[in-house]
């Protein structure tokens, strides 16, 4: 079964429908809130709150609509010959930055072994592009690279270079490769240090690039693997179970202006070189300087130059690893936040496709949305302070008091609507997985539904904490503080109680102050705010608990039941290399004999 490209009219109709449904949800919440506020007379703060809830609901609804659209179809392959002979030459680019060389280079060995198992004569090279700043790690990189080349007979196929100056970070690293060596290749598969891809997937990507000469970039949907902690497993389950449906919705709406997520994607080198040279933005960081979230920009530039950028969500065999705790997640999110807010400088670039501009706006909104929610909560706490006292005798000379009608039903209706937007897509995804048989990979329909409910409970618990981190990130960027590029922590990831407290005491303080203020000024709101306030007060415990390994069967993913071949290959190679290194350390005299 192959996928026919949607017509332009169909694409615009789908986008229009998605926007219309989101607007209807947002306006519905706006009107309902105005009715709620009107019970004791509308004032300025009521209107401000209604606008804040309009924006927040619109954003929530946009995500929900994307999932609903994604539920209408299943991922399918485009039209191409999956057995066509490969003509072009491909390079797999592995940018590294202070990562552990053994872990990273053994991934290269595994991918090369996986390609070899396909017995395809296609020419695929590997280039390790080091931006490592630490000399001791760089020395180990050279040593491990020699081992990699020897083991995989990689002379002529494996390359390594370390930049003296890591100008432009990852985008600069790739650009440096293209300007030095780009003409030697037709396609480049861009990976992250923690990416793993099956050889068969790589070959199919090349065939798809060759089948569509206008295709400039082909993005896969990487699945998160190897999560052990409660937080990591919740993210892994979400990425494996929910994300494909959201991605399907996105793929249906974006047409030929697809996404680039910076890794696990293949580019046509000529297209990339012609279109994606990124100058530094005017001014200083955080808004000026080098483009941080370069991937979105590169996707937009390829589309501007007329190249197709496509997400092929039917392709399996594409993996990445994720953060194991909330602190590492927040650290990564801090970088992404700065990168996305920096796009406010690029959104007006001449000649961009409207959808690319929309994607930039969407990325910015993803980070500023928490501010609207917080604004709404703060305004709701303050509102009773400035509201006029109730007038029980509005009619002069009338002896009986008038009690304003309760607006509780409208508030409850609004809350149900908003929670519905959050919960309904995930519940529907679980139901469809159960009916279609997809849930079998997640332990069966019952376990998949239980995992979905577990994920909903878990994300309700962690959402207020993540909301606070996101808000802090946005404020830091707006205040002009550059977050820099700390190395990702991809180790065990468990946090001590003290580490957890040090990372979140400010959230506890805000939670306590918020609940105290609510109790004092708006006691009627306390019950409503407890689901947000209590997780904030318990933030250190949540950070600590969620960073520890999970022994539950809940949130199992297909990779837990059947280890992907490439993961097994990598595990075996890494285990062997680690054992050899340990043995060499124990017997220094015989290590190099």
């Amino acid at each position, binding site marked *: 079964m192959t996928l026919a490209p949607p017509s332009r009219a169909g694409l615009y109709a789908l986008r229009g429908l998605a926007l219309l449904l989101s607007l209807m949800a947002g306006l519905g919440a706006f009107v309902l809130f105005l009715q709620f506020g009107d019970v004791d007379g509308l004032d300025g703060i009521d209107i401000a709150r209604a606008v804040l809830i309009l924006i927040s609901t619109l954003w929530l609804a946009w995500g929900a609509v994307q999932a609903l659209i994604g539920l209408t179809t299943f991922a399918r392959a485009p039209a191409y010959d999956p057995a066509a002979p490969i003509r072009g030459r491909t390079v797999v680019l592995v940018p590294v930055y202070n990562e552990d060389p053994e872990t990273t280079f053994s991934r290269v060995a595994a991918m090369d072994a996986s390609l070899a198992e396909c017995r395809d004569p296609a020419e695929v090279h590997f280039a390790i592009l080091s931006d490592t700043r630490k000399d001791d790690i760089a020395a180990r990189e050279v040593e491990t*690279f020699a081992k990699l080349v020897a083991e995989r007979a990689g002379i002529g196929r494996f390359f390594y270079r370390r930049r003296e100056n890591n100008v432009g970070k990852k985008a600069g690293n790739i650009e440096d490769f293209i300007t030095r060596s780009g003409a030697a290749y037709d396609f480049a598969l861009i990976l992250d240090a923690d990416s793993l891809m099956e050889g068969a997937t790589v070959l199919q990507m090349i065939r798809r690039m060759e089948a569509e000469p206008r295709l400039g970039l082909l993005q896969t949907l990487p699945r998160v693997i190897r999560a052990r902690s409660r937080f990591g497993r919740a993210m892994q389950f979400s990425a494996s179970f929910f994300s494909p449906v959201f991605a399907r919705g996105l793929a249906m709406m974006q047409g030929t202006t697809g996404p680039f997520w910076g890794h696990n994607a293949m580019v046509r080198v000529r297209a990339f*070189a012609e279109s994606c040279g990124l100058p530094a933005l005017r001014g200083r960081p955080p808004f000026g300087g080098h483009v941080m979230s370069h991937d979105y920009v590169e996707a937009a530039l390829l589309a501007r130059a007329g190249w197709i950028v496509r997400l092929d969500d039917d392709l399996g065999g594409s993996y990445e690893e994720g953060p194991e705790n909330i602190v590492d997640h927040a650290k990564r999110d801090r970088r992404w936040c700065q990168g996305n807010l920096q796009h406010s400088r690029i959104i007006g670039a001449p000649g961009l496709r409207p959808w690319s501009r929309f994607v930039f706006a969407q990325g910015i909104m993803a980070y500023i949305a928490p501010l609207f929610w917080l604004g709404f909560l703060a305004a709701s706490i303050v509102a009773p302070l400035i509201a006029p006292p109730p007038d029980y005798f509005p009619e002069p000379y009338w002896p009986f008091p008038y009690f304003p009608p309760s607006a509780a039903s409208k508030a409850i209706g609004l809350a149900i609507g908003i929670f519905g937007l959050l919960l309904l897509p995930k519940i529907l995804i679980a139901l469809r997985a159960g009916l279609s048989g997809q849930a079998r990979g997640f332990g069966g329909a019952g376990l998949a539904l239980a995992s979905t409910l577990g994920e909903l409970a878990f994300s309700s618990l962690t959402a207020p904490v993540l909301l606070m981190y996101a808000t802090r990130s946005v404020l830091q960027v707006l205040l002009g503080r550059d977050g820099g590029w700390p190395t990702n922590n991809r180790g065990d990831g468990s946090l001590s109680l003290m580490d957890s407290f040090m990372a979140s005491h400010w959230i506890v303080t805000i939670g306590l102050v918020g609940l105290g203020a609510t109790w004092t000024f708006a006691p009627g709101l306390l019950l409503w705010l407890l689901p947000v306030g209590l997780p904030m007060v318990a933030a250190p415990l949540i950070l600590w608990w969620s960073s520890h390994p999970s022994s539950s069967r809940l949130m199992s993913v297909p990779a837990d039941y059947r280890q992907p071949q490439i993961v097994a290959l990598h595990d075996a190679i890494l285990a062997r290399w680690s054992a050899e290194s340990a043995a060499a350390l124990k017997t220094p005299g015989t290590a190099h004999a």
Partner: protein
Amino acid sequence: MTAYLLPDAAHAAETAETRAAALIAGPCALPAAPMAMPPQVIEAEAGLLRRLVSLLLPQRPATPSAGAGA
């Protein structure tokens, strides 16, 4: 025994290091096949706010040049 092994180990390690360095400087150095990657225009000449403000503000008359003999 240790006295005998240590210089040997050091020599072996040095040889391995030299071999690895020669590898990345030689056959495993990136191929020389340059391709131009021209910088693209990724931001408007002036930001939206600046463009709006410049539209709203009255334009200043051009400063007259000092001229010869001024």
